[in-house]
């Protein structure tokens, strides 16, 4: 019976939404598609505990928790079939184009312009996040900042941060700060083994490679004064075929070396051919590949995704990894992690520039959430109230305390923020460096083809140049067909 009642309620909301008939302000149900994990579970719990609708009515936030691995399929099927089930949706930033073009995600530019409170929120959100999570057609951070005002004229806004994510370095304090290991490393490479946060701020990829070489030990050898009962590895980062589990890291290498991916914000002039496979890009990709030899053997299979490196790290098989902040919480959990009391976090390494500074440009992760297009004005207004509630400093701070993250600069600047979670300092430092991969509807086709070519290079079937040539050729043709390149 429960389902019958639920179904009827859903149908009522839907019918009201479709016909545009007035909905009683008292009871609005907002159904939200959300991946099933702690940051969204928190949102639901905290909503139930604290949310009071400003219109005095009773608002229900119905969360449809969908398992992460199937989240995309479920959302895509719901949207493209016209089911119109959801009023709000948590989405990956890359999906924006496909679902905006499909007419499913609501353009919020006018709403933001009309609402001073929303405007204030948008101004306080980190511009890298606004660029990645909100704009379509995509506008880069530089383009937004050039406009000098928020919202920038002529830019369309869609999403708000639900969980902003960056990748940082997770490392084993017990071995990186071990006197004997530090002395040995210094003796071998003439530079220090990064132990403190400040040390990691000065760590570039070259040193990352040295760490990898240094800590690669066989079963039976010594590590930090103890005999190893299994092979040990110094470093790992993502190199998996699934979803975007190599692109996110490869892009960092390309950008940091001055190369580029196809830049959708400069369409239709921007090219793929000659850019994606430029000499700089090939060199950068080669550098990415060169460190794989120091990583655990799963790297040879092209299956070393963000979860595999997390597991290898948690089970004490690897000394340092580069992984998303969103996967940090289990590392501190004694029941899942052998290194829960030995871990520290620093910014991800980068490429040293001519002036000695380090470029850490990275590919942003995390998810925004959006509103859908088929709702009545009452539902939209109430949904925006929920947005304001979620992005209020109080809620955001509470989210961070409970393992979430905030996109608001004022919250990140709060003196208590850095101490709330051990990776927060690194996260704030990294967020300034973030750019994003493409947002156009064809992104998945580009991503899949690219992941496949990258995977061939990672597993040693082809060279970096062959891989990037194939990617560039494919993208050039696809984008010309789609009218993105003149």
């Amino acid at each position, binding site marked *: 019976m429960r389902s019958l009642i639920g179904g009827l309620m859903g149908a009522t909301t839907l019918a009201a939404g479709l016909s545009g008939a007035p909905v009683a302000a008292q009871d609005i149900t907002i159904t939200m598609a959300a991946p099933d994990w702690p940051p969204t579970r928190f949102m639901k719990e905290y909503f139930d505990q604290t949310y009071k609708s400003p219109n005095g009515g009773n608002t229900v936030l119905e969360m449809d928790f969908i398992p992460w691995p199937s989240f995309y399929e479920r959302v895509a099927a*719901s949207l493209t079939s016209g089911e119109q089930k959801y009023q709000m949706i948590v989405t990956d930033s890359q999906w924006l184009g496909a679902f905006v073009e499909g007419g499913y995600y609501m353009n919020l530019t006018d709403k933001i312009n009309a609402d001073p409170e929303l405007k204030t929120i948008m101004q306080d959100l980190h511009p890298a996040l606004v660029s990645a999570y909100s704009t379509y057609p995509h506008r880069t951070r530089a383009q937004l900042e050039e406009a000098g005002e928020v919202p920038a004229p002529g830019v369309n806004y869609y999403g708000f941060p639900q969980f902003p994510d960056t990748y940082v370095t997770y490392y084993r304090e017990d071995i990186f700060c071990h006197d004997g290991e530090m002395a040995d490393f210094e003796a071998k490479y003439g530079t220090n083994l990064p132990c403190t946060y400040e040390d990691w701020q000065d760590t570039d990829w070259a040193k990352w490679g040295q760490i990898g070489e240094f800590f690669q030990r066989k079963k039976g050898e010594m590590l930090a004064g103890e005999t190893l009962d299994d092979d040990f590895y110094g470093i790992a980062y993502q190199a998996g075929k699934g979803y975007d589990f190599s692109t996110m890291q490869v892009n960092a290498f390309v950008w940091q070396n001055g190369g580029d991916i196809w830049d959708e914000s400069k369409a239709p002039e921007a090219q793929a051919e000659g850019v994606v496979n430029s000499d700089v890009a090939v060199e950068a990709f080669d550098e990415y590949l060169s460190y794989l030899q120091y990583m655990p053997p799963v790297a040879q299979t092209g299956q070393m995704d963000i979860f595999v490196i997390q597991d290898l790290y948690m089970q004490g098989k690897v000394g340092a990894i580069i992984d998303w902040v969103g996967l940090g919480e289990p590392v501190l959990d004694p029941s*899942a992690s052998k290194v829960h009391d030995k871990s520290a976090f620093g910014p991800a390494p980068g490429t040293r520039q001519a002036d000695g500074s380090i470029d850490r440009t990275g590919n942003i992760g995390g998810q925004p959430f959006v509103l859908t297009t088929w709702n009545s004005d009452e539902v939209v207004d109430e949904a925006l109230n929920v947005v304001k509630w979620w992005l209020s400093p109080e809620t955001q701070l509470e989210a961070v305390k*409970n393992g979430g993250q905030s996109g608001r600069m004022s919250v990140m600047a709060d003196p208590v923020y850095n101490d709330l979670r051990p990776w927060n300092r690194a996260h704030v430092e990294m967020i300034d460096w973030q750019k994003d991969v493409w947002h156009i509807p064809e992104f998945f086709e580009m991503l899949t083809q690219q992941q496949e070519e990258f995977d061939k290079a990672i597993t040693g079937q082809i060279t970096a140049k062959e891989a990037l040539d194939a990617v560039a050729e494919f993208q050039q043709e696809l984008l010309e067909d789609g009218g993105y390149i003149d």
Partner: protein
Amino acid sequence: MARRYREIGKAGWGYTLITSIVGLIYFSPVLWIILTAFKTRTDALAVPPKLFFTPTLENFTSVFYRSSITTGTSQSTDMALYFFNSIFIAGTSVGLALIVGTLAAYAFSRYPLRGNDTYLFIILTTRMMPPIVVIIPIFLMFRLSGLAGSYWGIILLYTAFNIPFSVWLVKSFFDELNPEIEDAARMDGASESRVFFKFCIPQILAGLSATFVFGLILTWNEFLFALLLTGVETRTVPVAMARTLGGEVGVDYGLLAAIVTLFLLPIFFVTFLLQNQLLRGVTFGTVKK
């Protein structure tokens, strides 16, 4: 009319020992999964693999309860509901397919239509289509008819999936019956429904139960349509299981193993009870007496 199969020779306990060893080797991945259900994450990923460990029941608790993020109190995961859903949806749809399929099978066997074989073939073809193609139309249809998220929607869909198989299998059982007995009954003035219920059905009960078990095995673990067409309240175990495959950690091996183990129990016992009939079921009824 018990269809007990005949064995090629008989063997003693020594043979049992040998086959048990082979059987256990074959079973070992399943055993591994069952053992994992009692392990912590660290034990599950231990190198070398741990055969002896302190068992924990925590995974089984987590199947049904999770702790709240804000208050730490324990909340239901609704998994009990999903188990009910799976049993209810699979049981009803396989049963329904069996009833509808039996009627059709009887007709195909006793009252052949013009183009009988063509109909039968078309029915079978629907089972052969890669399911991904029909998703968008079915999704659209479910929305228009209001079936999305309801029990009836998914039950009818699974019924449709099971009909081809049921029709083919049950028809072969009817084909094997001796029509003379039925004719004799008709001569004695028995009505058609009496012939059907009193003479035909009792003779193929074993076959019907085999069909049921086989349909159950094919339906029990269905994932794709369950993912897309069930709602929060009608979700089945295979869909709920997917939450253990990634999120904040990769695969939660212990929890996944616990769900798999619990989910194996009902179908394991049904299969065990109807084991001899299953032997007949898989051959599409081609094995003669």
